[in-house]
């Protein structure tokens, strides 16, 4: 291929990289406007810039590829398919809500707001790249872009001891697990001789691999899992999660609990369903013979959800409580991945969308409560419904949805996951998840009880601004609507797998 052809094919690639380009432009715009001194503390300006940029990125990702396998671009490193488009939309939406929450948040000082927006957008860029890359090296690069910048984001309040501690913990765990994952990548490369994951998948699943290298395959799967389970905050790499969530500013916590977690699931699906499984028929996949990784994932899923839910019971700090709840939800999501069929993947995608709304919503209310003289402790929530009824009703909606009670969206997500599990005849997993749902009820309702039934302990005026209400409302509406009528979203998600 001569140079002109390479240049032309790369230029061609920009047709599919609209989201990435829009995000890069936004990053530059934020960087440049941030250095102009008079603007330094102007939250509204940065908010407007970010929203415009993200809206641009959103529109750029709206274009849907038709049927077929999608288009490779940028030297075949990336794939433009409906799977990546779905996750691009998801990440941009998560970033938009996060910046809106950060704008109304007082934990982030005025002079830090620009950095905060910048970092959130950059992490989003990493996640967007991750969702579309189909090359091991590119995947690792995007993975690290996302990780490194999210360490910075956690440590944005580095002057506070809690912030620094959280960032350090996050870095140490993250560096270790992604190193292990990289080792796994090198093993795969050694075995297949290429970094293109589609190609590797064909080689690993081919007949002449069968029966050999069992130990090597087990190692590979375990090493891959280390990095992915860390990002999704699943057992046994979940320990960082409560400390980091507690130490980071609330909007950042919200972002971490949705964005990088979903990115972890996206790359989990991409890697495991291409490398270690092949499509069989039009509904299912078959795992490689050497290692029964779906069973491993199923067991990890059961442990993760039980651990998350049981640890959450005694938490008095609402952010820690939500951190453990997010561990539990990672466990629920892993059920879908263990199923090895289209319905399981649809369930994961559907649950992620629902989770985006309900979890960000819960954190939005926590942010609003933090803004007054309130705090993160549950005692600030006692009797709050008398002073901020709308926020409390919204919080109840989010929490009931997190439990999975109809008519809220979380219930539909659970139905998706449970049906995938039952279709696969993992009855024991269904029972474990069912019991976990009941356990989770206890601690979520504890918070609801504090808001609606208990008497106020600390009397403070929660200052919930108009913007906060708008954000909370924008998150509560889909949580309600998707619980009652979810055909359009279900049909859209059915079309991406």
């Amino acid at each position, binding site marked *: 291929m001569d140079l002109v052809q390479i240049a032309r094919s790369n230029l061609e690639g920009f047709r599919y990289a609209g989201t990435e380009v829009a995000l890069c432009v936004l990053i530059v715009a934020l960087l440049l406007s941030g250095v102009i001194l008079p603007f330094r503390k102007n939250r509204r300006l940065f908010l407007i810039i970010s929203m415009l940029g993200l809206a641009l990125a959103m529109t750029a990702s709206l274009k849907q590829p038709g049927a077929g396998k999608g288009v490779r671009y940028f030297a075949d490193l990336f794939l433009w398919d409906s799977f990546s488009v779905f996750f691009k939309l998801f990440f941009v939406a998560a970033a938009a809500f996060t910046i809106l929450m950060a704008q109304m948040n007082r934990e982030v000082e005025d002079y830090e707001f620009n950095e905060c927006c910048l970092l959130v957008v950059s992490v989003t860029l990493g996640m967007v790249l991750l969702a579309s890359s189909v090359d091991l090296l590119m995947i690792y690069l995007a993975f690290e872009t996302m990780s490194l910048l999210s360490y910075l984001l956690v440590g944005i309040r580095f002057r506070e001891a809690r912030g620094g501690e959280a960032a350090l913990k996050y870095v140490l765990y993250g560096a270790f697990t992604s190193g292990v994952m990289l080792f796994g990548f090198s093993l795969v490369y050694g075995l297949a001789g290429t970094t293109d994951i589609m190609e590797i998948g064909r080689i690993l699943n081919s007949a002449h691999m069968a029966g050999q290298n069992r130990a090597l395959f087990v190692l590979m799967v375990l090493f891959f899992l280390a990095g992915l389970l860390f990002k999704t905050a699943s057992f046994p790499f979940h320990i960082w999660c409560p400390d980091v969530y507690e130490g980071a500013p609330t909007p950042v916590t919200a972002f971490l609990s949705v964005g990088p977690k979903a990115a972890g699931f996206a790359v989990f699906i991409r890697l495991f369903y291409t490398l270690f499984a092949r499509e069989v028929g039009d509904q299912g996949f078959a795992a490689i013979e050497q290692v029964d990784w779906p069973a491993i994932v199923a067991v990890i899923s059961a442990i993760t959800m039980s651990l998350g839910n049981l640890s959450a019971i005694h938490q008095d700090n609402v952010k820690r409580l939500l951190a453990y709840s997010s561990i539990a939800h990672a466990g629920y999501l892993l059920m879908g991945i263990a199923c090895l069929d289209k319905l399981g993947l649809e369930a994961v995608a559907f649950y992620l969308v629902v989770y985006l709304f309900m979890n960000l919503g819960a954190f939005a209310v926590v942010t609003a409560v933090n803004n007054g003289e309130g705090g993160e402790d549950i005692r600030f929530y006692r009797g709050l419904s008398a002073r901020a009824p709308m926020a409390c009703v919204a919080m109840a909606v989010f929490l009931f949805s997190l439990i999975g009670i109809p008519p809220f969206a979380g219930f539909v997500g659970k139905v998706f996951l449970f049906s995938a599990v039952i279709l696969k005849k993992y009855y024991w997993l269904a029972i474990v998840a069912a019991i976990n749902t009941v356990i989770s*009820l206890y601690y979520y*309702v504890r918070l609801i009880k504090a808001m609606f039934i208990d008497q106020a302990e600390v009397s403070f005026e929660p200052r919930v601004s108009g913007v906060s209400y708008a954000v909370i409302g924008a998150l509560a509406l889909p949580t309600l609507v998707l619980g009652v009528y979810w055909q359009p979203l279900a049909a859209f998600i059915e079309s991406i797998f």
Partner: protein
Amino acid sequence: MQSHILSWIIFFPLIGAAIICFLPKRLESWMKPIALASTVPQLYWAYKLYVNFERANPSFQFVEHTSWILRFNIDYYLGVDGVSMPMVLLTALLSFICILASWNIDKYIRGYFSLFLLLDTAMMGVFCALDFFLFYIFWELMLLPMYFLIGVWGGPKKEYAAIKFFLFTLVGSVFMLIAMLAFYFGSVEPATGLHSFDFTILANQAAHIGILKDPVVRWGCYLLLLIGFAIKIPLVPFHTWLPDAHVEAPTAISVILAGVLLKMGTYGLIRISYPVLPDMARAFAPVVAAFGLVSIIYGAFCAMAQKDLKKLIAYSSISHMGFVVLGMSVFSNTIGINGAILQMFNHGIITAMLFLLVGVIYDRAHTRDIDGFGGLAHNMPVFAGYTGLAFMAGLGLPGLSSFISEALCLIGAFQTYKVMTVLATTSIIITAGYFLWTMQRIFLGPMNERWEDLPEISLREAACLTPLAIIVVVLGFYPMPILDMIGATLRNTVHLVVAMR
């Protein structure tokens, strides 16, 4: 043409709830009348249903059927048959009466009445839904308002009672969810080849495929559903939430809880478990009957030991629901199951009366300690009269409604479970014992001076009780209005269970 009467009867209270939610604070005094007004049309529609219901037709009537979620082939499918009709009537009547009985609520009026109307919608929905998914949504939708109604407006230990109720019921619900999804994947709609949540398709054994042909899965599903429903009924040993919830709940909520919610357990068995898994229904019947028997006797003895009047009635509910379970575990004749449905209706009416009466006295004396009263018949003769009637109905006095239904349950059961029926019959004596003894301790004997100036029952309270009292007496002499309605459907159900090989 489709009639939309069932949609109206389900969702009309929701309109009232929405209005109450958004009513400005200064119009607070309108909230109670609006709530009452939103239940009146329900009564009218219930009456229309009662008049237009074809008695001889065993299948579903007033059907509404539209597709809802295509991805999972979920339909918005409503209809009533002989089993659901009495429950719809009961729900409509009790909802209206309970709003009237809640007139003295003065804390967070907006929240109370909007939640109550939401609960009303959910209850009606459960009894009208013919799609399992829709049924499940309504079933769960009851939990939220119920939690808050007990937790916010309840007695001193309300938090404990509310969360206990919530946890117990959710265990049942999630088990039901698993069974529901197994049904879905184990069935196929003949016309389209899709899986289905439709009760009429699920009941067709020819539509079962794959996992639902596996006896172990069928057994497991039946067990999961049974646990779910047993918690709701409640059968001993799943009953412990009930006394707590009843004692702490405000009067009207106790009425709804005992009058309507408990019936959903037995209703679910007849609507779902029996038609879909008839072979398992037969296999489990002796076990279920035994649990029913234990509930009858255990509930009666516990009731006798209670000092708290409300707790006594809660335990008597457990005992009386045991008769329903015993009666409906018989498939060799249709007498038992007829008696069971009649008993569901009768118990709904009688227990509503009992809880309303407890509410009346608690509002005045602020205690429910049975031994603390005495001689109340002197200054509250009308109240004593109503209570006497309700107690007599509770103990199954011939000439009052529950005599007929309990007798039918026992007659039906005797053919299959001779020893159990004999044992169950002994509980009638215990029941008579605790009701009469309570009557004596509260109303007879020397007057306790503390209660000398308790005012007589008010007009509003009497208005709540009188319609119920009339029904108790009328059905005691002439139960045919209900029996006519349920007969054809139940013959069908029993036939279905017996026919399946």
